[in-house]
């Protein structure tokens, strides 16, 4: 498939935004159980939610560039019964809204106790809003992943690993971002987030490599023979019917030299997984903002390469019809 930068930025930006929110809420949950020191609502959770929202809005803006007719984008919520894209279009604003409410409640320090569970565990407003936003964050990962995983003849995508990777990569980059934010805000949670970022990045490494291994063994179900229905092992296209370009020759090929494709295959794991883990663990000693920020930038660039490769690797069966001019 042709990797469109609008979609690459959309998925990586909202992934990081979702991950950052999950990191914030994880921090809050830990502090409720007194496992980490509690943070100031105003500066940490308030501004943290704002940062997550900025990433989500940037992603949303980027997605508009993918549409031919962005002025009609409101129509895309209509078919949520059948289309994962439609579901994403609904869940993304819902998640943004819930993150906004969560951030505002923290920012205004408005956090009334709502109810308590067996008189031990007190549920207050931000905890409830955060739980709802967390559910929406995971739902959004599911929608984003399923947009790709539900197309069964794009065999490289049609696997539960796609959803898992979108979730883990988003979470990993979000926790790295949370590390940067926590160290910038001068809060002791930087170590806590860096630790989780390393763990999540390592798990994501395993699942992403699993999908690479799986994809390298794929046997295409569609063949030349099934494409034109002639039972013969030797079928060669002599003409695709036109010499000019067309949508079919642009949208389904990455149009880059194979050396580029092969090198990205090695570049993205290094940038997304190996280097961030090394930089994060070395940064944990000095706990310096600059090193954490460097780790996030490297990981984000890696994720762009990862997403490019994700699209470029998918081989659409329609390409069988467009092999020779």
């Amino acid at each position, binding site marked *: 498939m042709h990797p469109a930068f609008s979609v690459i930025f959309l998925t990586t930006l909202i992934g990081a935004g979702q991950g950052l929110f999950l990191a914030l809420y994880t921090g809050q949950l830990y502090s409720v159980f007194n496992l980490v020191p509690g943070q100031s609502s105003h500066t940490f959770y308030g501004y943290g939610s704002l940062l997550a929202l900025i990433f989500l809005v940037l992603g949303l803006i980027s997605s508009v560039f993918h549409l*031919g*007719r962005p002025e*009609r984008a409101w129509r895309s919520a209509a078919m949520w019964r059948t*289309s994962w894209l439609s579901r994403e279009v609904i869940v993304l604003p819902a998640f943004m809204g819930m993150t906004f409410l969560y951030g505002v409640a923290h920012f205004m320090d408005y956090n009334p106790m709502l109810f308590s569970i067996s008189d031990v565990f007190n549920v207050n407003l931000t905890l409830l809003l955060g739980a709802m936003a967390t559910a929406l964050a995971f739902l959004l990962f599911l929608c984003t992943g399923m*947009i790709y995983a539900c*197309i069964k003849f794009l065999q490289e995508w049609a696997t539960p690993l796609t959803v898992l990777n979108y979730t883990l990569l988003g979470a990993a980059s979000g926790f790295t971002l949370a590390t940067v934010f926590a160290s910038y805000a001068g809060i002791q949670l930087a170590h806590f987030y860096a630790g989780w970022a390393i763990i999540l990045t390592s798990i994501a490494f395993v699942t992403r490599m699993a999908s690479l291994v799986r994809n390298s063994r794929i046997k295409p179900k569609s063949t030349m023979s099934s494409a034109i229905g002639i039972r013969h092992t030797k079928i060669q296209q002599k*003409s695709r*019917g036109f010499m000019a370009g067309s949508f079919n020759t642009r949208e389904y090929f990455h149009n880059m030299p194979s050396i580029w494709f092969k090198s990205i295959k090695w570049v993205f794991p290094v940038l997304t997984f190996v280097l961030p883990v090394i930089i994060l663990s070395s940064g944990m000693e000095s706990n310096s903002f600059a090193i954490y920020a460097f780790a996030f930038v490297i990981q984000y660039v890696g994720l762009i390469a990862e997403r490019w490769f994700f699209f470029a690797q998918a081989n659409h*069966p329609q390409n069988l019809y467009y092999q020779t001019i």
Partner: protein
Amino acid sequence: MKQLALVIDLNVCVGCHACVTSCKEWNTSGTAGSMSDFNPYDEDPTGTFFNRVQTFEIGEYPKTETVHFPKSCLHCEEPPCVPVCPTGASYKREEDGIVLVDYDKCIGCKYCSWACPYGARELDQEQKVMKKCTLCVDRIYDESLPEAERKPACVLACPTSARLFGDVKDPDSVVSENIRENGGYQLMPEWGTKPANHYLPRRKTRMTIHEDELTRIDNPLNKERQLPMPDEDEQTLDDVMSW
């Protein structure tokens, strides 16, 4: 239950591209708006087409066969492009099974084109909406046309009648009869899309003629013709009469 479709006879198609040009001509002048072209007479031209004729070589030289293969939207009975559409612009008509795009609802997200294994959909670069074969829906029901012309433009244009049009759900239609009797098949059956369009395979028309069929055994001339001269060493009536 009705499912209009094309049946394309690969045994008859000569690869003349008349269906391609007539399709472009009809649909670019149709009510649905133009099918845009860019740089048509320049370097790197591009444009929107609903129908293409491709050419394949089967077998290994010198024992090869050339197959011309017209390809357009197959109007699947289980179209994978329809459920993925987020706006409902892409739909399959209940009354005749034609898969259509509502150009006024399409947002140009290209998701349906990803979800079509046949590459039948194209994004029009000018209107920025997804377009595809409509089976000339603006033509086949047009009562101002003579009944014989209420067919898709490609079908009317085909000089060899390689394209047949009709209801594949009606067992008595010409298309059903051809699918049934001439081994009609669907493309990429492995994805369960159940294309409505069918293709008829190449068929060899052979006539076996035996040696004895070349000469007429009961030829009446056998009795009436002049008998051949006997050989010189053979006895003839002349020898008897030599005295």
